[in-house]
């Protein structure tokens, strides 16, 4: 359901807080597979061609693919871990307080024994805080990794969730922290978010000056575009639309009314382009492999506009 939701001013301020001077642009879009990564990688490459230092951030930690589109192997890994409680049998008084406090029901107390972790712990540490005997120690559970690859003027930061683990949000937060710490010298930061409108997308969007919502002119694309534009409106983040595969058979009228309702505009239309598909499967950005392709020209033009607006 779309909402007229208002966030408190101080929460909006926290969402817009940017710990670095560098401008931050997000590439997002409610639906999966509409071309977010392709657009983010190519805008980044186009800006590098113009001589800028670009930090590209792959925040789709479930399915990080920007490195494949750039045909590079991820480097400089840092672990992302959450607390794993370990109960010290000798200190435990079997008071059950930890079992009762755990809202995920992850702890179980066998008869005559100390509690054991049986469920899905999210590392909140409530059990450690409530234990009167100081009997719970902190161990670590790995949930993902962040990576950093530097080539020429393009630095790729990637977050990667370990398959089978649910804690995407920890990985996104760790990635953003690393970027804001290590990308201070860049001229611009481009963030490629995951599909959807959930908390990981919001965490990825935090600190953005502007967000480009990529969509395609199909009923499915437009349905999901509405949701992401709604989210951006709630977060007070300036939104623009990138219409990918613009010549797909679709419903232009519906698209136009959504764009009007959210008071935004289509910044660029990227038509279907065999050269783009060719470069996509080769792992080379189309703006580098086929600079004369129609898609390259359109993306380069948009990148110039972004540079003129945001890079001093």
């Amino acid at each position, binding site marked *: 359901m779309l*909402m007229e939701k208002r966030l408190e001013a101080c929460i909006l301020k926290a969402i817009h807080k940017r710990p670095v001077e560098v401008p931050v642009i997000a590439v997002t879009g409610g*639906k999966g597979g509409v071309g977010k990564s392709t657009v983010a990688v190519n805008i980044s490459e186009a800006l590098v061609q113009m001589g800028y230092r670009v930090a590209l951030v792959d925040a*789709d930690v479930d399915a990080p693919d920007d490195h*494949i589109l750039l045909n590079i192997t991820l480097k400089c890994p840092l672990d992302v871990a959450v607390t794993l409680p370990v109960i010290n049998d000798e200190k435990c008084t079997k008071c059950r307080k930890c079992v009762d*406090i755990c809202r995920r029901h992850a702890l179980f107390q066998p008869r005559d024994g100390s509690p054991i972790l049986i469920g899905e712990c*999210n590392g909140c540490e409530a059990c450690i805080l409530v234990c009167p005997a100081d009997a719970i120690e902190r161990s670590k559970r790995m949930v993902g990794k962040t990576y950093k690859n530097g080539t020429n003027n393009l630095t790729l930061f990637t977050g990667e969730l370990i398959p089978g683990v649910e804690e*995407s949000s920890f990985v996104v937060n760790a990635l953003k922290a690393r970027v804001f710490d290590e990308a201070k010298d860049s001229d611009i930061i481009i963030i490629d978010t*995951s599909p959807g409108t*959930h908390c990981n997308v919001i965490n990825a969007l935090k600190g953005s000056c502007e967000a480009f919502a990529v969509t395609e002119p*199909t009923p499915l694309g437009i349905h999901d575009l509405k949701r992401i534009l709604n989210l951006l409106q709630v977060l007070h983040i300036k939104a623009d639309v990138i219409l990918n595969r613009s010549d797909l058979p679709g419903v232009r009228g519906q698209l136009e009314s959504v764009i009007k309702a959210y008071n935004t505009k289509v910044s660029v239309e990227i038509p279907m382009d065999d050269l783009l598909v060719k470069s996509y499967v080769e792992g080379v950005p189309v703006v580098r492999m086929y600079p004369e392709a129609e898609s390259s020209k359109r993306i380069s033009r948009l990148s110039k506009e972004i540079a003129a607006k945001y890079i001093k």
Partner: protein
Amino acid sequence: MKEIVILSGKGGVGKSTIAASLGTILIEKYKVVLADTDVDAPNLALFFDAVLRESKEISASEKAFIDYEMCTGCQECVDVCKFSSMFSSNNRPIVIPYTCEGCGACTIVCPEGAIEIKKVVNGRVNISDREETLIVSGELDIGESSSGLIVDEVKKTAGTEAERLNADLIITDGPPGIGCPVISSIKGGDYVMAVTEPTPVALNDLKRLVEVVQYFKIPCGIVINKSDLHQKSRIEIEEFSDEHNLILLSEIPYDISVAKSIAKARPVVTAYPDASSSLAIRELADKLIDIINRPD
């Protein structure tokens, strides 16, 4: 009753398109309930022009609420939050609602007892139908969290509806990715149908998905959509399937009829029953029924 869960890792490879067509075909012979657990972008019902029959609010999320009359501004709650969901503004702790997990750590350290964990509405489960087709879909409210718990509710409702209708089959159209809504979608499923396309990116995401599915020990088969897109990647997917003992269920050729049917918001098997993709999906439907009815 069996449940087939359709997943992909990568978004936009054709999960919903194939789910809609499979549903349409199987409903001809079986009693089927369709479930849409892509709660961030629930699109399946669009294909059927289905009428919303019932919508129930779900309070599957819990969050911290601060009573500022009692709060002394000591900030202990801010320091203890592991989810970066509290910050201090003018010496007042503020809860960032969309990332708060409702874990209650802040309630333990608050010396004034000023923080309470309360359930909040974070989405809804919708039941819609059109003729014989019944669709249960979940929808996460904008800016909310705990999508996995909404997925649990969708699956629960789909199960109840399937029992009520004495259905043979639930087809679940899942979300992209491999995170918590995907894990919730997999749980309790009998079979995972992983849809992919022959590109290096889709294969990368497929590998990550298969790791998750095999972790939960659920049998899994592969569908290569737009199979003639890139020959080299197609061979790589076939090799990957062999190595991991995954059945290659179907290769659906690229077909402009699919794009045209999406534009009309119709399953391709309805809009273009004789198209090459429709014929491939019909074969896929037979194969799936065969596999899930096999004794274990």
